[in-house]
């Protein structure tokens, strides 16, 4: 597997490399491309007095050193190289670089930030989650802690699916990733009771129906996957019901609004992202060619 790491020379960048290394470790053609993107200078932002002041030379020497430090963080056995480029927009630049290198996904390190109760990925992650043609993986310090507890090895994939069309694609793609990484797969569905009729009976029926639907689905795909259907008053409570183990990786599908082969993160996925304390991957729904 080939991944592109959106790197900044700080703790987040190091965390992104750690997650990316764990993701590609043991796969065929395991390789990382470490991308350092710089803002493109525009002539309409002329620096005066004095122009460049030697800045670009000093900056490129600094970037060379950052790249060397980043490559030193990649464990043995994983092919890694670095690239630096000036781009008008960071997200667009990462997508272009990812496509250039035939990457299967983009990895970002980040911080969890809560704004008015909503998880908000950074501006760059947010742009990627709404436009990337390839999977986007994100780490946070808390999620990295669970990965480290598993000695830096991913131990299981959990694919989040809804009970509406689209589940099949997400499960299928997750299964392919699981197979490539030789990992067990778990399929999870969250049911918010608030959206259902009030009776106990109805809830029970719904849970059973969803479970059997997913069982049929995995069977028809020829998969051996654990299935968990959990419910709670709201989405947050349901998410909290799910048990996690060290080394888990959560996968979410993109919203049905997405253009073919592009990510578009839906409100539910956004909500779930905020609750999870494991590394997360968001995958474009339609079958990714690579």
């Amino acid at each position, binding site marked *: 597997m080939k991944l592109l790491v959106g790197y900044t*020379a700080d703790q987040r960048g190091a965390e992104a490399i750690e997650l990316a290394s764990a993701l590609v470790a043991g796969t065929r053609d395991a390789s990382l491309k470490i991308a350092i993107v710089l*803002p493109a200078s*525009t*002539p309409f932002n002329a620096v*005066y007095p004095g122009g460049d*002041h030697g800045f670009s030379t000093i900056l490129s020497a600094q970037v060379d050193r950052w790249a060397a430090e980043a490559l030193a963080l990649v464990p043995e056995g994983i092919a890694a190289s670095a690239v630096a480029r*000036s781009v008008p927009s960071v997200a667009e630049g990462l997508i272009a670089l990812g496509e250039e290198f035939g990457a299967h996904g983009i990895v970002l390190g980040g911080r969890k930030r809560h704004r008015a109760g909503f998880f908000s990925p950074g501006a760059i992650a947010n742009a990627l989650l709404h436009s990337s043609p390839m999977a986007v993986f994100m780490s946070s310090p808390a999620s990295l802690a669970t990965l480290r507890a598993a000695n830096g090895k991913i131990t299981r994939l959990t694919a989040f699916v809804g009970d509406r069309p689209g589940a099949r694609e997400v499960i299928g793609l997750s299964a392919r990733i699981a197979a490539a990484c030789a990992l067990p797969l778990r399929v999870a569905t969250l049911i918010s009771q608030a959206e259902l009729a009030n009776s106990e009976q109805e809830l029970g029926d719904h849970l059973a129906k969803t479970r059997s639907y997913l069982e049929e689905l995995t069977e028809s795909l020829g998969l051996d996957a654990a299935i968990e259907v959990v419910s709670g008053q709201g989405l947050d409570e349901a998410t909290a019901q799910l048990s996690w183990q060290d080394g888990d990786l959560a996968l979410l599908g993109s919203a049905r609004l997405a253009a073919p082969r592009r990510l578009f993160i839906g409100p539910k996925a956004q909500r779930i992202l905020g609750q999870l304390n494991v590394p997360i991957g968001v995958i474009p729904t339609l079958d990714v060619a690579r």
Partner: protein
Amino acid sequence: MSQDLRQASPPARSESGLHEKGLPKGTVGVLGLVVIGISCIAPAYTLTAGLGATVAEVGTSLPAILLAGFLPMLLVALGYRELNSAMPDSGTSFTWATRAFGPMIGWMGGWGLIAATVIVLSNLAAVAVDFFYILLAQLTGQDWIAELTTNLWINIPTTLVFIAVAAWISYRGMNATKVFQYVLVGFQVAVLLLFAIMALTSSQPNDPTPITWQMFNPAGIDTFSAFAAGISLSIFVFWGWDVTLTMNEETTDPKKVPGRGATWTVLVIIALYLAVSLGVIYWAGVGTTGLGAGNPENQESIFAVLSGPIMGPLAMLMSLAILSSSAASLQSTMVSPARTLLAMGYYKALPSSFAKISARFMSPSVATFAAAAAAAGFYVITRLLSENALWDTITALGLMICFYYGLTALACVWYFRGELFDNARNFFCKFLAPLIGGIVLLVMFFATAIESMNPEYGSGSEIGGVGMVFILGVGVLLLGVAIMLWMRLRNPAFFRGETIRTRKLLK
């Protein structure tokens, strides 16, 4: 966040080819270049800050001194362009003067540029704040709001906020777009022209002063000292123009566009300046009382006083033009001292923490905040010491520009000393023009510096019988000498020529 730079040697051109330079090649045409030039000059700001002080020196000869002030600027800029094309990536006054004259003079060249930009930053912020409150007053119709800016307890904190915001924006590396610059520049030029037309066609001028050819004759200025002061002020109003000459790769045709762009910029700017200054002289006169342009009360910010009576309710447009032009310049000018501080830190001419680059925003971190802190500190000190802080800082700024420009022009002559007489072009662009320009500016520097020791000079603020302008201008340079000697003791590598080599004679 950032790492220390531990390399002693200057960086080679990135050997790995890792970092591709992201300059968009060839997108700027003549019109674009004129817009960039005018935005760097920021005419609405320079006129309000510089016109009054210049009238105080030369009276009705204002148009003449504006024309005369452009000449040394042009001569020096020709030399600048040669240095820039010989060492495109290696910087500016600091590195150029170091390569030509060695570390000590190079250090002072860098310091002069930093000092000039720090002074202009504090002045830009102050002008932006003044017009911020004036605009608020005009928008709400509450005149008392405009007076808030005279209350130091309000003025100083607001100015510090403006400086902090500008530093934050330039640290975050947010760029102005093409559309933004076009709108900003177009608006500025339109409002200034409107002001000039309304002043010249006014039916009730304050002190109708007939416009005569004598106003255009530099020989009509009474004394040499008034002439020198006028020149150093008019250098300030053209400061920014030379950016058009140094843009090459960015233009659609590097052979033709920079020359044409520079010519059109200067024609537009001179026309604008002449129109506005004739309008001011015709309408307000140069009298030292009331609304006269020579009234010390009006020196600090001429449009703050005149735009209301001349433009009526449209004065709001003028306030908006000045506020936007000074706020935009505040942000873009912040980058300049930050980059020179960064380069000085990198080459060990200053502590190496100045060379830190933010890993997230790819901009100087310590250097940006140091530049902002210096501008804030300079503003607070001058505001507390001088009754007419803006006037004195503009005069001190003119002094500082003359210093580092003059030094850089002579650096050009000395740097190219082995090839000056190879052909006619070299003789003119590398020798004659920068030599004359450099000498003229340094003469202006010394003449104004000596003159400014007089406590009566400028706004008339003084400390211990010495003029405020002298204390600000020469004091800042002496502070630089002190820091340089301290750095030399502490970390002599740069001063031994180990980080930047002085260029030996060519051939």
